[in-house]
């Protein structure tokens, strides 16, 4: 292939004006032939260029690169001469490199007096770059250069040097917007993969933290890092993750959502089977429980697998504040989970089928409010729910400058005018608002989405079958959840199948001294997380009493 390519390049070289002359001047047939061949080459994915080796002839390499990067104004080829030695050129993408560093390195090479000029010697003696590599094929070279490395070609060398002098501008590390906390670290992942892995490494300073690198996406060549803690994680899970990711064949991966969809267990389920997080502490905590994290270059959202349902209802802050409060908040979430899912359908069912279930005075107020409403309860509920969903969607897409105006308008239209005009009853507005608030209490946005979606079929069921329909719907949802798996782990673990020891992190948030074991349902290797001696000490005195510290106020007691 390369041979054939070289022949074409040579013929190109023979008539250098060919590329600049217009098509009309060309022999049409010959031109078409060559174009076709080039097109075929162009359409190939970078990875396939691995078959093409780097040639010893510098000009050959240069011409090929010039062809590959034709019309790429950001790709720069900078020829230079190593002093007293050979010709060379550097290849880099402007904007991805640290220009000052590249300048310095080139300078160091240029004054490399009278050296032999082979790549190995240069690398070891005169290139002041900390990250250095050499490649012998175009596939690896292009992947590196397009990722920000600088490639250096030297006359007579079949290998090119890769200088890791990346300096692309990135967003600075800031507080994650989707997972804000009151107490906890304020740093969040950004788009750059290396920055993200470094953030995690700063949390887990251990060589046990492994990061397997992979590349996915034929055109995007997105870098992926699979992070896990060796010694804790079940190796089968890691193998499964690596296997599923290496099976991916797609042209582009622009966000971790692509990966999530391509590796999840049940494509058609409304439930998220992969958790994502913007927070290094959340990811670190997951790894410590024996999960696997998947970093995807270009997005701050890191995937965490396996994921269970209860995990989606837990926030990192649960572990930072007092455990009693965390327990209460967890229960608040569980209650509001049901409200978010069932409130509108319960209202429909009760107000159209089971009026006898309401307390009399409540029924009378509802009846009074509904007196002038022209729609059946289910239509009313649908109008309001859809209006609310539209408002929410608009709120996300709106430019910030008009956001306030629209929210005021929305509040007025939905909250006031529709009630005063007698289109929608006030209880319905209350129901929709509570439902809306309830869905925001779920810490994971993708879990809240599920509830928002499932609400509507339940509303239809409620309008047809009443309470019976809701029960059937909920049973169906539960059955589906019991059926789901995430990387082999049942979705409802640890409640179904029950592993009662792990419930102390689901029903309540037990204090750390009571959670000395990692959750066992994940089939991990190392189960103990806290030292036995410390746990026993704390348990015996239900806290650290500091008995050794005397205080005047209890002196008498201690004497006695």
């Amino acid at each position, binding site marked *: 292939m390369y041979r054939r390519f070289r022949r074409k390049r040579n013929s190109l070289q023979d008539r250098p004006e060919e590329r600049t002359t217009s098509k009309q001047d060309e022999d049409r047939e010959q031109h078409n032939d060559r174009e076709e061949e080039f097109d075929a080459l162009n359409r190939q994915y970078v990875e396939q260029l691995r078959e093409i080796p780097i040639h010893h002839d510098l000009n050959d390499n240069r011409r090929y690169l010039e062809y590959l990067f034709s019309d790429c104004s950001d790709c720069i080829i900078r020829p230079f001469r190593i002093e007293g030695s050979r010709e060379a050129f550097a290849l880099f993408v402007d904007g991805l490199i640290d220009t000052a560093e590249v300048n310095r390195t080139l300078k160091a090479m240029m004054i490399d007096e009278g050296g032999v000029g082979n790549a190995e010697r240069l690398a070891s003696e005169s290139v002041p770059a900390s990250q250095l590599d050499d490649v012998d094929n175009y596939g690896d070279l292009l992947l590196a250069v397009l990722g920000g490395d600088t490639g250096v070609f030297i006359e007579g060398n079949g290998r090119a040097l890769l200088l890791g002098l990346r300096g692309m501008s990135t967003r600075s590390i800031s507080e994650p917007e989707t997972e804000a906390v009151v107490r906890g670290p304020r740093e969040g992942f950004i788009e750059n993969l290396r920055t993200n892995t470094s953030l995690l490494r700063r949390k887990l300073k251990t060589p046990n933290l492994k990061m397997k690198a992979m590349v996915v996406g034929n055109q995007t060549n997105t870098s992926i890092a699979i992070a896990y803690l060796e010694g804790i994680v079940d190796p089968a899970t890691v193998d499964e993750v690596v296997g599923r990711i290496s099976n991916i064949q797609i042209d582009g991966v622009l966000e971790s959502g692509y990966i999530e969809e391509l590796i999840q267990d049940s*494509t*058609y389920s409304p439930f998220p089977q992969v958790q994502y997080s913007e927070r290094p502490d959340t990811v670190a905590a997951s790894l410590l429980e024996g999960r696997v994290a998947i970093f995807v270059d270009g997005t701050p959202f890191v995937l965490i697998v396996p994921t269970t349902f209860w995990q989606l209802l837990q926030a990192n802050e649960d572990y930072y504040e007092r455990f009693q409060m965390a327990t209460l908040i967890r229960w608040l979430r569980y209650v509001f989970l049901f409200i978010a899912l069932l409130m509108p359908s319960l209202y429909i069912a009760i107000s*159209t089928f089971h009026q006898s279930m309401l307390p009399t005075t409540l*029924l009378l107020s509802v009846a009074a409010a509904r*007196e*002038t409403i022209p729609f059946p309860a289910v239509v009313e509920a649908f109008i309001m729910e859809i209006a609310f969903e539209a408002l929410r969607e608009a709120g996300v897409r709106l430019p910030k400058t008009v956001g306030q105006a629209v929210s005021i308008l929305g509040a007025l239209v939905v909250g006031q005018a529709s009630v005063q005009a007698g289109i929608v009853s006030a209880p319905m507005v209350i129901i929709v608002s509570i439902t809306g608030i309830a869905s925001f209490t779920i810490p994971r946005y993708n879990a809240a989405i599920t509830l928002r979606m499932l609400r509507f079929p339940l509303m239809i069921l409620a309008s047809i079958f009443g309470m019976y329909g809701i029960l059937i719907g909920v049973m169906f949802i539960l059955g589906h959840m019991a059926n789901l798996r995430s990387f082999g782990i049942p979705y409802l673990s640890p409640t179904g199948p029950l592993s009662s020891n792990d419930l102390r992190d689901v029903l309540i948030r037990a204090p750390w001294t009571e959670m000395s074991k990692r959750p066992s349902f994940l089939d991990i290797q190392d189960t103990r997380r806290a030292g036995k001696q410390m746990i026993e000490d704390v348990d015996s005195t239900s806290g650290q009493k500091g008995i050794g510290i005397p205080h005047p106020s209890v002196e008498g007691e201690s004497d006695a």
Partner: protein
Amino acid sequence: MSSSKKKTLGNSSRLLLILILSTLPFSFGCWDRTEINDIAIVVSTAFDLDPDGKYRVTCQMALPGQMGGSNGGGGGTSGQKSYYVDSETGNTIREANARQQARLSRQLFFAHRRVLIIGEELAKQGIREIFDVVARVPENRLTSNIVIAKGKGYDLLNAQPQFERFSAEAMREILQSDNMIEINMKDVAQELSQVGTDPLIPLMMPVQTTKGKQKSTETQFIGYAQFHDDRYVGPIQDEAAQGIYWIRQRFKPYTTSFENKQFGKIAINVYKGKSEVIPHLGSDHITFDVRINANCYITEAEQGIDFGMSENIQKVEGVFDQKIKQSVQAAIAEIKNHKSDSGQLGLVIARNYPRQWQDKYEKHWYAELQKAEFKISVNTEVARVGLISENIAKKEVTE
């Protein structure tokens, strides 16, 4: 599971499935769907007996439109009643209901009936039939309160109490207050089905308030209705009603007042009490030993006696003993007079001596009750005399 099934289906059969599923709601849905504004919420019903022997059924229904819900241009509640009372007669209660329904645009809905009123005339004839009508459909609640009306039942429904929107609501609030025996339909049905106890149902009547600027008709609790089996035989009121609490061993706090030579006019509140009725089976009559422990406090004492002195307290306690004893005796007189076991005395015997009750007393219980004798012992304790032990306006006289 569903996804794998879908995959095996062909495109056309999947379309068919979707079509069938989408027609489902239209084919069998909503047959018992009723919107809230399609029902007439009955909050109370009165059953009466007309002179011609027909039942008169009166329903009090809420008018949600008049209750000031949020609406566009809906009138306020000023002047307009928030309820509607409709009355109809029929040979049966259901017939009357059906006739009412024929002129109502909304479906009668009885699940929220909170008070069932039975007129005096109908109660005299017997209330057992009512329980057939009420318990036959699940919509009716057996936990609703039951009231005997002095006079006509529908008069109570037409009363317009000031605090509540409906008289039914007012009656229910009164009936649920702490100082009367609360009885719902289930309790009455239970007592009717047992020998040795007769129901005691609150008796109410509409009264015009007097001397106020704005006249209003309130529903007033005036005592309990006594029954002989299921027939209303007469009221039990005031002192006798207080006495019946002790005999029934179901204490309810009450206030009573009396005049005494030594202490003048005194009002007390009996706030805590416990009574015990112990039967002794004699060869020809039963003796009931009624032992009462009462705690009370003085709420009014005109004479200005210093209750800070313990001998005064002791003396006044003796007077209270007598007072309570009197009330129990009054209750016993009512029981014997009306041949009504509203004190649940038969139950006391049935529980203590089940064999003898079955063999000897059950068949002629009312006759036995007439012969029964009562020994009453009362022990009153004045626990509180109020914030002051004597009138603060009493003139200080230096001795």
